[in-house]
């Protein structure tokens, strides 16, 4: 027994002794960038939802977005042409683009990609985004024609989806193909290896149509635990790392980048509740919340006040400012405890939030405190989504959405009366003929000026009716090594993991 113990002890000592810190200073390491995120994709197949908004590093869409989120041609030679009736979109493919396995890109690959998304047997989460699409055809090997059910102005924004090689997936079960873990794309990097739960290793695609990447590769480390990621960042393991605002602090050799997003948080107010159904209460609440205090106090400065669903960074944004409301004149008179009452109805309601989301919880508490000052009583309730869903039509809820790309994307379903009470679309049952008309006009008409006017009407009407009290836009915070050159933050969507993070243009990054 003793001898056995001795042997074990010796082995353990040996394990400790032979440990040599892994070197990171070699020249080949200097040309590879290491980034870290918590968001590990479940799959690397664009058909199943990987990097659907582009910047996926491994794939290219027909179009891509530049630093200002403006569409630029990618696999398409120029921006696809939209017919006069808006129902036919024609894309000419770039010549000379090849997949990582050397096969040339053809129109058949594009047709295969979009057809697979539309196939009900494929477990794609993107199908409802392409509701308007009837057919995709390839009249010749370098032309793709999309036929739409109805004119859809922002359709080109949906063409950022990565194109997969038809030859690698045809006649296979797309849901379970080996391709999903070892994909082949046309993008600036090809996949060397993916160890789930650990890291994704990418090597530069020397023959990328966009030119050789400025570095030799990228390693994406997946560290789900926030504190673990912060500590490993401090140990100097990463060149760029996404961190929660309270953990993102500068330390020697590293600095913080705060990136604006279109990801907003707000209070959804149900229309058939006796208190929140009253426009005066909603507007009073809209005026009563101290958004700047929430940005400073709850978000630690990593955010911006929100007044509507179109972010200030969007060309469609118009400024609206909630005006103070005289609740006494509206019949809501303060009672002895300071809470207002009208016709025996106390100005009180429940505010739900997902209990696991500490940010939404803190926002709910801040709203509760601000409402109290206006004489409105809020009871915050932390629940699971399963408990929240059946109550959404009757009780207020802290919700969050947001995409920087087009105002149609979420707002059409979120505020359109057609979608009232349909799951997470417009759960409060908001109905406004003005908003419906504006949202439809923004979708039907391709003319940018008319669209701008339509969304201006939409935002002003929303500010008047206040079906939501918008609180804040979040900022994503990253810590980046100081010797990295080429970091170009752009407005981000809610989802940012391997694709669409601060490293959206990592193929141009170099070391100083």
């Amino acid at each position, binding site marked *: 027994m003793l001898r056995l113990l001795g042997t074990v002890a010796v082995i353990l000592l040996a394990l400790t002794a032979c440990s040599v810190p892994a070197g990171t200073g070699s020249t080949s390491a200097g040309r590879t960038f290491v980034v870290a995120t918590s968001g590990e994709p479940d799959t690397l197949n664009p058909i199943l939802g990987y990097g659907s908004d582009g910047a996926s590093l491994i794939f290219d869409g027909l179009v891509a977005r530049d630093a200002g989120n403006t569409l630029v041609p990618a696999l398409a030679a120029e921006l696809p042409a939209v017919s006069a009736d808006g129902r036919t979109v024609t894309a000419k493919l770039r010549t000379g683009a090849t997949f990582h396995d050397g096969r040339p890109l053809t129109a058949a690959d594009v047709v295969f990609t979009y057809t697979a998304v539309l196939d009900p047997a494929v477990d794609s*989460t993107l199908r*409802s985004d392409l509701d308007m699409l009837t057919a995709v055809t390839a009249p010749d090997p370098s032309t793709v024609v999309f036929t739409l059910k109805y004119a859809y102005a922002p359709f080109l924004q949906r063409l950022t989806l990565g194109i997969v090689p038809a030859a690698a997936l045809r006649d296979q079960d797309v849901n379970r193909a080996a391709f999903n873990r070892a994909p082949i794309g046309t993008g600036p990097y090809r996949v060397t290896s993916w160890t789930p*739960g650990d890291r994704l290793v990418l090597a530069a695609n020397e023959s990328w149509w966009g030119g050789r990447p400025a570095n030799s590769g990228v390693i994406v480390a997946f560290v789900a635990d926030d504190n673990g990621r912060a500590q490993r960042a401090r140990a100097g393991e990463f060149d760029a790392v996404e961190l929660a605002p309270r953990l993102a602090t500068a330390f020697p050799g590293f600095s913080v980048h705060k990136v604006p997003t279109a990801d907003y948080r707000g209070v959804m107010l149900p229309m058939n509740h006796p208190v929140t159904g009253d426009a005066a209460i909603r507007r009073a609440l809209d005026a009563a919340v101290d958004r700047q205090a929430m940005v400073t106090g709850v978000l630690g400065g990593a955010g911006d006040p929100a007044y509507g669903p179109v972010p200030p960074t969007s060309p469609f944004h118009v400024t609206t400012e909630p005006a103070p409301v005289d609740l006494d004149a509206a019949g809501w008179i303060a009672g002895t405890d300071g809470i207002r009452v009208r016709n025996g109805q106390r100005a009180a309601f429940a505010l739900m939030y997902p209990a696991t989301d500490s940010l939404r919880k803190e926002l709910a508490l801040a709203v509760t405190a601000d409402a109290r000052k206006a004489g409105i009583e809020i009871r915050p309730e932390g629940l699971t989504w399963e408990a929240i869903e059946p109550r959404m039509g009757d009780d207020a809820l802290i919700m969050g959405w947001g995409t920087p790309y087009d105002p149609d994307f979420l707002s059409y379903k979120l505020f359109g009366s057609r979608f009232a009470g349909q*799951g997470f679309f417009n759960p409060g049952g908001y109905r406004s003929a003005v908003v419906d008309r504006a949202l439809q006009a923004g979708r039907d008409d391709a003319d940018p000026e008319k669209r701008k006017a339509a969304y201006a009407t939409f935002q002003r009407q929303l500010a008047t009716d206040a079906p939501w009290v918008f609180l804040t836009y979040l900022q994503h915070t990253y810590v980046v090594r100081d010797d990295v050159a080429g970091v170009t933050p752009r407005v981000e969507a809610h989802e940012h993991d391997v694709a669409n993070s601060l490293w959206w243009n990592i193929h141009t990054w170099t070391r100083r």
Partner: protein
Amino acid sequence: MIRVVRRRLAVAVPVLFATSIGMFLLGAASPIDPAMQYAGAAAFSMSEENLQQIRDNWGVDDPLPVQYLRWLGNLVQGDLGWSTSRHQAVTEVIADRAGWTLLLIGITLAVVLTGSLLAGTLAAHRRGGLFDRGVRAAAYAVESMPVFWLALGAIAVFALALGWFPAGGLTGVRATSTSFPDVAHHLVLPVTVLAISQAPWFVLFVRDAVAESLREDHVLAARARGLAGRTVLFGHALRTALLPFLTLVGTHLPELVGGSVLVETVFSLPGLGAVSVQAALGGDFPLLAAITLVTTAVVLTANLLTDLAYTAADPRVRIDG
């Protein structure tokens, strides 16, 4: 002996059946919608029709007995099913990750056993002495610390302040291959943290058991015969105390597995811990059922081995299966 093993196997089959049925019933009672979990953030902007197509593809709305029989049929053919949270065959998920978890638990168990036997015996040797009091105080202190807190503390001190060990991961983040020294270097902190967090039970148990047996007649007799102090302590007293210790190891194994989940999370090790949590939160019943079955099988085997070791260690003990 063979008769015992055979009889245990006969019991194990219904236990595994009952476990799998229990899993399915729990799954049916759970309000989690696997399709919504699968879609992630997209679930909030997807149409209900789109979600329903995915549910239909998976057959998760089929009646429970249908789902169970389908799962059982595939299991008999060696197919554990498809993990909806990992988008991978369940067998692949387990094959990729179980090795790392077993390695972590295996090394930790070896460290805990060695360390606690040594420390416990020495503490019992001079009861009330400085070492004894120190060990007991440390054991109570550690017992009251959550393991993730210990882990973060260890990272702060040994990875950040001193820079001796990496703060997480299985290999250096730039490593091109999985080399033994690199993995060993990365496992030092997780193993130490997990071992320390599990040690108090074992140390205190060994200390009490040895202290008890030091007062027993055969130990006193050995001492009276003039045997060396060390021979009496390790050869006689510790030996008597070892038997109940075996049982403790057997019953404590599940707790060790629980601790490894947390340690794997903090040190970002790609073991089974993280995927089990993900499977549970994501309503991924094929993966959850497989992990539960494997764990049940491991616990049953551990119990069997404990009993067999018992008979080997103490000729007075005979088990009738």
